[in-house]
C-alpha cells in the first residue's frame, strides 16, 4: 500500500488537476432532463459526499463519472482526461452487494475477478486476494460463497474487489444503506481509513446527512427536478474521526443544522 500512496501522492502539478471535474453537465434520459447545469470538481485525495432527495440524480452522477453514461451536454473529466468509458482507475461500490457479487464465486474468487481483469499474473492472485480480504477484515473467510455471508461481509467483499483495482477514484453508491446501524458505523470507519491509506479520491453518495458529514471533506447537496447543485459545505472536522467524539462536536451539529435546513427548504 505504501508503494501505492507514493505513486499517487499528489505532486504540486497534479494538485492543479482535479480528480473529477463536471463542467455544465446536462443529461436527458427518455426525454426527461435528469441533471441540469451541474458543475463541480473534486480535488485529488479528497473525500466528497453527495446528498440530496431521491430523484436528484445522485446515482446518475456516479454513472457519469464511470463513463457508463455520457452527458447530453457538457464535459466530464477524470484526472484531467475526458471520460470516454470505464477505466480500471475508477472503481464503484454498489449498494446492492447481493447483486453485485458473483454468487458462483467465493469471496476470494470475487476479489480475484478484479485481479483477472487487471491482468494480475495467475500465481499472484490467490495471495493478493487473501491480502485484500485481510485488509477489509475478512481473513479466513476467503472460501465462503456470498450466500454464506452476512450483508456486512458481502459489502466488505465488494470493497475488497474495488481495492483490487488499485483505483485512483473510488465511487460509492449508498454502500451502507442496506446494513444495520452497528455494521454501518464499523464500515464507515473502515472505509475512511482504507481511502486515506490508498490515497484515492472518493465520491460517496448517501441519503444519510450525518454519514455525509462524518465521512466527507466536503458535502455536495443536490436538489431535484432536474438534479443540480444546491449547496456545498466544507467539513472542517479533524481526522481521524470518531463515532462518538466527532458526532458530539459543535461543528458537526452546526453542519447538521445547515444540511437539514437545506433539505427541508428544497422539499
Amino acid at each position, binding site marked *: 500500500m505504501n508503494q501505492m500512496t507514493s505513486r499517487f501522492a499528489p505532486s504540486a502539478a497534479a494538485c492543479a488537476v482535479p480528480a473529477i471535474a463536471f463542467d455544465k453537465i446536462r443529461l436527458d434520459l427518455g426525454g426527461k432532463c435528469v441533471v441540469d447545469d451541474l458543475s463541480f470538481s473534486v480535488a485529488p485525495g479528497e473525500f466528497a459526499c453527495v446528498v440530496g432527495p431521491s430523484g436528484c440524480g445522485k446515482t446518475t452522477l456516479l454513472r457519469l463519472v*464511470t463513463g*457508463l453514461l455520457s452527458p447530453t451536454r457538457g464535459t466530464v473529466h477524470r484526472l484531467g482526461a475526458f471520460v470516454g*468509458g*470505464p*477505466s*480500471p482507475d*475508477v*472503481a*464503484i461500490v*454498489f449498494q*446492492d452487494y447481493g*447483486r*453485485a457479487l*458473483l*454468487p*458462483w*464465486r467465493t469471496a476470494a474468487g470475487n476479489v480475484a*475477478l*478484479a485481479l*483477472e*481483469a487487471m491482468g494480475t499474473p495467475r500465481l499472484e492472485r490467490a495471495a493478493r486476494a487473501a491480502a485484500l480480504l485481510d485488509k477489509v477484515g475478512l481473513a479466513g473467510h476467503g472460501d465462503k*460463497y456470498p*450466500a*454464506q455471508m452476512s450483508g456486512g461481509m458481502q459489502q466488505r467483499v465488494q470493497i475488497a474487489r474495488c481495492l483490487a*483495482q488499485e483505483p485512483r477514484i473510488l465511487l460509492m453508491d449508498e454502500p451502507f444503506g442496506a446494513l444495520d446501524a452497528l455494521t454501518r458505523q464499523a464500515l464507515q470507519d473502515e472505509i475512511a481509513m482504507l481511502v486515506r491509506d490508498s490515497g484515492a479520491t472518493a465520491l460517496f453518495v448517501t441519503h444519510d446527512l450525518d454519514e455525509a458529514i462524518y465521512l466527507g471533506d466536503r458535502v455536495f447537496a443536490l436538489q431535484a427536478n432536474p438534479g443540480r447543485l444546491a449547496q456545498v459545505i466544507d467539513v472542517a472536522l479533524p481526522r481521524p474521526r470518531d463515532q462518538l467524539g466527532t458526532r458530539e462536536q459543535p461543528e458537526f451539529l452546526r453542519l447538521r443544522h445547515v444540511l437539514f435546513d437545506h433539505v427541508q427548504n428544497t422539499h
Partner: protein
Amino acid sequence: MNNWLLRAGSILLTSVVLLLWQLVTATGLVRPIFMPTPAATFVDLWRGLTQGDLLALTMSTMQRMIFGWLLASLGGVLLGALIGLSSRARYWLSPTLELLRPLPASTLLPVGIALFGLHPQMLLGIIAFGAIWPVLLPTIHGFSSIEPRLREVAKTLRIGPLAFALKFGLPNALPDIIAGMRLSLTACLIITVVGEMITAQQGLGSTIIMAARSFRSTDLYAGIVLLGVVGAANNALLGLLEIGLTPWRTART
C-alpha cells in the same frame, strides 16, 4: 430418519409393482405370450446378458445415446450462448427456432433416410437434433438473464465478451444447462430407441421390435427392463454431476 422411511417406502412400492406383475401373470390373467412372468423375464435377461449379445446391443445403444447427447449438449450450449448473449441473434433466429422446436424428431427420420441414407451418422444427427432443445432453450435463458448489476460490474472492470461469456454467462446458465441436459439425455434415449426401430440399426430398439414382431415376449420385456435401468442410472449419475458442478447452490451456512 424421515429420509430413511421415504427410501424404505419407495422400495416397498417397487416391490408391490413387481408383485402385481407376478400375480397378474402367474394366475394366467394375462397370457405369457403377451406378458411373461417377472421371473421368466429376469432369467431371459440374465441369459441374454451373459450368453447372448444383449450386452453388446445395450452398449451399442448406450454409445449412440451418449454420443447424441454430447453432440446435443455441446451444440445446445454453444448455440444457446451465442443467442443468449446477443439480442440481435435472438431477434433473427427465434422465429426459425420456434418453427423447428415442436417437430418430433421421429418425423425427421424418414427425411434423414431420404437425404443421407441409412447411415449411423445420420441417426446420430437426428438424435442430436431432437435432443438439442432441452439444452438450447434453458441455455439461451441462462445467458440472457444475467443480473443487470453484474453487467455493470463487468463493464466497469472492462471485461471482454469472451471472458464475460465464460465468467458470467456460463456459471449463470449452468444450473439451467444441467437441468436441460438431464431432460436431453432422456430425450436421447427415446429417440435412439425409436431411431433404431425405424432404421433397423443394431441396438436395443431394433432387438425389442424384432422380439415383439416374432412374439418373443420374454426378450421384449427383458429389453424394456434393461432400458428402464439405463434411464434410471442416467438420471442418478447426472444428479451427482449437478451437485459437483454447482457447489454454490448447495453450500449454505
